[in-house]
C-alpha cells in the first residue's frame, strides 16, 4: 500500500510540476497579451488625440478661408479664438506701415480696456497671457493679444499652439485677401484679345 501510495504521490508531483509549468507559460503569454493590449491602447489614444488636434487646426483653417469680406474675416478670427482657443478676453490689433496700432476687434474685458483708452500694442500687451504676432509674409502687421483663457482652461496645449501658429501665419493674409477680393469683385471683366 505504501509503495502504491508513493507511486501515486510521485504521479501527482509530476502532474503538479507540469501544471506549474503550464501556469508559468500561461502567465508569460498573459503578460505578453497585456503588454500588447497596453500598446494598442496607447496607439489608439495617441491616434485619437492626433485626430482631435488636427481637427482643431482644420476647423481654424477652414474658417480663415471662409471670410467673404474684412468684417467677416475678423469675425471668424474672433470666433476661432473664442471657440477653439477658449478665450473671452482678447483684442485684435492692427499696425499700419507707420507703426500706429489700432484695435480692430476683440471680446470681454480686454476689449473694454482698449475702449477705455489703451490702444498701443505695448500697453495692451503689458499683462497679456499671450501675444500672437500677425504676419504678412515676414512683416508684423498686428497681433492677437490674449489676456486670459476661460476659467476652466488650464493653459495652452500643443493643439492650441498649432492653431495660434496658423493664425499668426495666415490670419492677416486671409483678412487682407478678403479685402482685395471685395475691391476686385466690382472691376469689369477685361476684353480678351
Amino acid at each position: 500500500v505504501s509503495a502504491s501510495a508513493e507511486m501515486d504521490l510521485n504521479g501527482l508531483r509530476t502532474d503538479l510540476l507540469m501544471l506549474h509549468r503550464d501556469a508559468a507559460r500561461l502567465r508569460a503569454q498573459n503578460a505578453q497579451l497585456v503588454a500588447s493590449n497596453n500598446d494598442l491602447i496607447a496607439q489608439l489614444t495617441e491616434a485619437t488625440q492626433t485626430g482631435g488636434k488636427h481637427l482643431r487646426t482644420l476647423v481654424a483653417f477652414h474658417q480663415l478661408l471662409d471670410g467673404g469680406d474684412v468684417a467677416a474675416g475678423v469675425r471668424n478670427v474672433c470666433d476661432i479664438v473664442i471657440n477653439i482657443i477658449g478665450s473671452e478676453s482678447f483684442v485684435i490689433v492692427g499696425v499700419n506701415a507707420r507703426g500706429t496700432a489700432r484695435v480692430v476687434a476683440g471680446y470681454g474685458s480686454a476689449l473694454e480696456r482698449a475702449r477705455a483708452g489703451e490702444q498701443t500694442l505695448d500697453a495692451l500687451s503689458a499683462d497679456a497671457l499671450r501675444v500672437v504676432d500677425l504676419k504678412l509674409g515676414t512683416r508684423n502687421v498686428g497681433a492677437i493679444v490674449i489676456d486670459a483663457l476661460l476659467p476652466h482652461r488650464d493653459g495652452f496645449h500643443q493643439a492650441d499652439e498649432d492653431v495660434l501658429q496658423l493664425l499668426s501665419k495666415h490670419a492677416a493674409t486671409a483678412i487682407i485677401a478678403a479685402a482685395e477680393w471685395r475691391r476686385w469683385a466690382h472691376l469689369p471683366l477685361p476684353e480678351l484679345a
Partner: protein
Amino acid sequence: MNTALSRKKILLVDDSPTSLLWQRLILEPEPYEILVARDGEEGVRVARSSRPDLVLLDVVMPRMDGFEALRQMRADATLRETPILMVTTRSEMVNVMEGFEGGCNEYITKPVDRAELLTKVRGYLHAAEDLS
C-alpha cells in the same frame, strides 16, 4: 449597432460657425443625421418639427439664449425626454446650475473636446436605445 444608430438625429444649436463646423466634423463620421439651427428661436422651431434624438445647445446666442430655448423645449411634451446637452464657454457654477435647473442632461464646456463629446453623445443615444 451602426444600423440602429443610423436613424438617430442630432440637432446642433449654435450661432458660432466655427463651433458648428467643429461639432459637425466630430459627429458626421458617425452614423448620425445632423440638423443645424443658428439661434435659440430657430433651435426650438427645428426641435419641435424634427423631433431630434439629442440636442447640443449653446448658451450665448442672439434672439433667444440657450437657457430660454432649453425651457421652451422642456415645456413641450414631445421634447421632455430628449437628451439636451448644453455646450458653452460659460463654466461658472451659476450657469451650470441654471442649465441643470432648466432640465439639461449634461453641461459640456468649450472648446469642445472630441473624445468627451463623442462619449457623451454615444452614451445618451445608447441609453435611449436600451430603454426603447
